[in-house]
């Protein structure tokens, strides 16, 4: 048993931090927050130049990162709140294309995705289908040389700036649930597509996207007709391994920085019992979240699939961010109300922002309820609800 990171891992951590120092400037951070869009073309291409988009893929001239390398890379990027949302979703889809897509799609799309030149948003959720993805009703009807798409997708984050949307549609009219679904790559310059902005509590912008009588050539189909569900699983595997503990790490670090500064009366908040109690509980949950995440990575590194362990780490990390976002803003007092980017805010408003930002985490990527169902079945041996 060894909990220490080796020199190679620490060297990578330093490299990522130096990269972030150079490329994630305060101006860019402010611009990202103002726009609510977690993407920047220049930043994405710089990541691509480091081979950090799809870092575990073998490419000429680069040594791919192992599971622990990817772990460190994603943790550092997430902790800095770097604009990686769109490159992450692009890679989720790239994995599907690599797994089941045509040779043409693989040849034209994948090299550009890993260079940060092509981006792909996710078009899975619908007004009546969130965590229950298999309830989708968006239709793709066969037409001469391709498909005609009709429907509506919710939470197509970055759907207004991406090059493509990964679309899950029902190709078999009377089919139900997981059957009769197919996945497509939809170029967003296609006629019949429209994105409408939706703003969220966290400040992030997402979109409702509309597909009206949209014609799509068959070469944009990713999965075999009717095999969309299993292709989707390739993407979701990736989503389950996204780290959330770095958000708690950032929140705790900022709150500790605030608490150790002497206040107007000369006393530092950390000297107060209730502040110490709130902070140390957050520190405990941060340790546990990090350990559950590192265990999933370790299991991957030895070729095991973290069937219940992945959901455990997602559940515990995200619920911890919610819990301590609430507890730490409360214990920090009225000043914690001052918002992100207000010049009087505590720690630049990052404490206040963490509270709002936490709300999405326990929903996307499978709600906490979904994670508990999986754990109950796969670990506790309980029957399906």
């Amino acid at each position, binding site marked *: 048993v060894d909990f220490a990171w080796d020199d190679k891992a620490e060297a990578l951590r330093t490299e990522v931090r130096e990269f972030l120092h150079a490329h994630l400037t305060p101006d860019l951070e402010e611009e990202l927050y103002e726009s609510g869009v977690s993407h920047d073309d220049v930043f994405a291409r710089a990541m691509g130049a480091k081979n950090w988009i799809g870092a575990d893929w073998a490419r000429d001239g680069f040594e791919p990162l192992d599971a622990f390398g990817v772990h460190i890379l994603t943790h550092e990027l997430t902790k800095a709140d770097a604009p990686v949302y769109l490159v992450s979703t692009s890679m989720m889809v790239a994995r599907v294309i690599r797994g089941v897509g045509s040779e043409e799609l693989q040849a034209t799309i994948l090299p550009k995705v890993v260079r940060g030149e092509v981006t792909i948003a996710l078009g899975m959720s619908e007004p009546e289908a969130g965590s229950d993805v298999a309830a989708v009703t968006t239709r793709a009807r066969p037409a001469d040389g391709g498909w005609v798409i009709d429907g509506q997708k919710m939470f197509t984050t970055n759907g207004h700036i991406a090059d493509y949307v990964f679309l899950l549609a029902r190709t078999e009219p009377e089919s139900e649930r997981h059957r009769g679904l197919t996945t497509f790559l939809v170029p967003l310059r296609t006629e019949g597509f429209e994105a409408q902005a939706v703003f969220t509590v966290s400040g992030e912008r997402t979109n409702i996207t509309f597909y009206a009588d949209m014609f799509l050539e068959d070469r944009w189909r990713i999965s075999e007709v009717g095999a969309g569900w299993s292709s989707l699983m390739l993407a979701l595997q990736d989503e389950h391994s996204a780290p959330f503990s770095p958000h708690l790490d950032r929140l705790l670090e900022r709150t500790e920085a605030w608490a150790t500064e002497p206040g107007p009366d000369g006393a530092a908040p950390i*000297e107060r019992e209730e502040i*110490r109690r709130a902070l140390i509980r957050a520190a405990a949950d941060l340790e*546990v979240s990090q350990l559950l995440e590192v265990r999933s990575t370790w299991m991957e590194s030895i070729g095991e699939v973290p069937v219940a362990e992945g959901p455990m780490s997602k559940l515990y990390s995200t619920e911890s961010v919610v819990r301590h976002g609430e507890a730490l803003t409360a214990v920090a007092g009225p000043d914690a109300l001052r918002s992100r980017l207000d010049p009087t805010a505590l720690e630049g408003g990052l404490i206040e922002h963490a509270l709002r930002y936490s709300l999405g985490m326990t929903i996307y990527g499978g709600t906490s309820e979904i994670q*508990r169902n999986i754990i109950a079945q796969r670990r506790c*041996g*309980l029957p399906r609800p």
Partner: protein
Amino acid sequence: VDLALSEEQRELASSFAGLLGRASFPDQVRAAEPAGFDAALWRNLYETGALLMAVPEAQEGWGASMVDLALVAEESGRWLAPAPVIECQVTARLLARVGSPPALEALRAVLEGSRLVSLSLHPARCGVAGLVPAGAVCDAVVVLEGDRLSLVPSPDERRRPVANLGFAPLADITLEDGGELAHGVAATGAYELALDEWLVLTASALVGIGAAAHEAVCGYAAERRAFGGVIGSYQGVAHPLAEDATRLDGARLLVQKAAWAIDTHHARGRELAALAFAFASETAEQATYQAIHFHGGYGFMLEHDVQLFYRRARGWARVWGSADDAYRRAAAARYGSSERRSA
């Protein structure tokens, strides 16, 4: 980072699981109530090397790591062993660490099996060491008074065994003048480190207690039917059990990290030890409560084994303190002592 146990560590855990499962659970656990001590089991554990393993090779022990001892402690918890393995291991290590002639003499007697020596988890107050673990069955106890660490005999006329929630062999011991083992910083430093070790190993036992109770209730929930379905298929039952499974895994990982931190003299050793205890203690309390609750009325019956876990999840931990006490100790390690700041 490598979370794999070695082949030897897996064998160690399974040999203790075999010994304790065979010898102690549940009939011998019940038979040992309320005194909480099974002399035959203790002899058996001694002969297996439970004490020798804990002592460094320099003092003729087997030099097990804290990670190894945590594996043994988890099995002690899982099988509710009515034997003071953790206290006696920690005390033996403390005697070895102090290293003074009287300490080494006491250690020799401990390793020969001729004396059972335990540790008072709190500094003595008004000449009494209260609720000493294994106090009802030990021959002597190591006590800190001020900055003086001494070895005090505990004959029957000077101790009062205390009936208690966890059916542990606790006693209040009225101190007589004992032989000094060490004083000053050497004494308090060694004692605090012994407490760190006790916290980590007890945390590991609590993980074992919680995990055993959790497995029992999951098995029950997968079979028991009510309202036309298996109760484990209802999310009101399944989701709390999924939360417990998650926290138990987290607690076990945190215990291992704290044990590793002590083994490697990591700067965060004290903080992690206290965090592991706090987290494991809350987790075991929750898991054993849930285990009783989801058994319905059956869990509340003395006849049912699940209450055995509930009692010890609390009794074995609170003899030192609550989760909140441990969080305070962790905060003092992480942020510095608050008393010193305000003084």
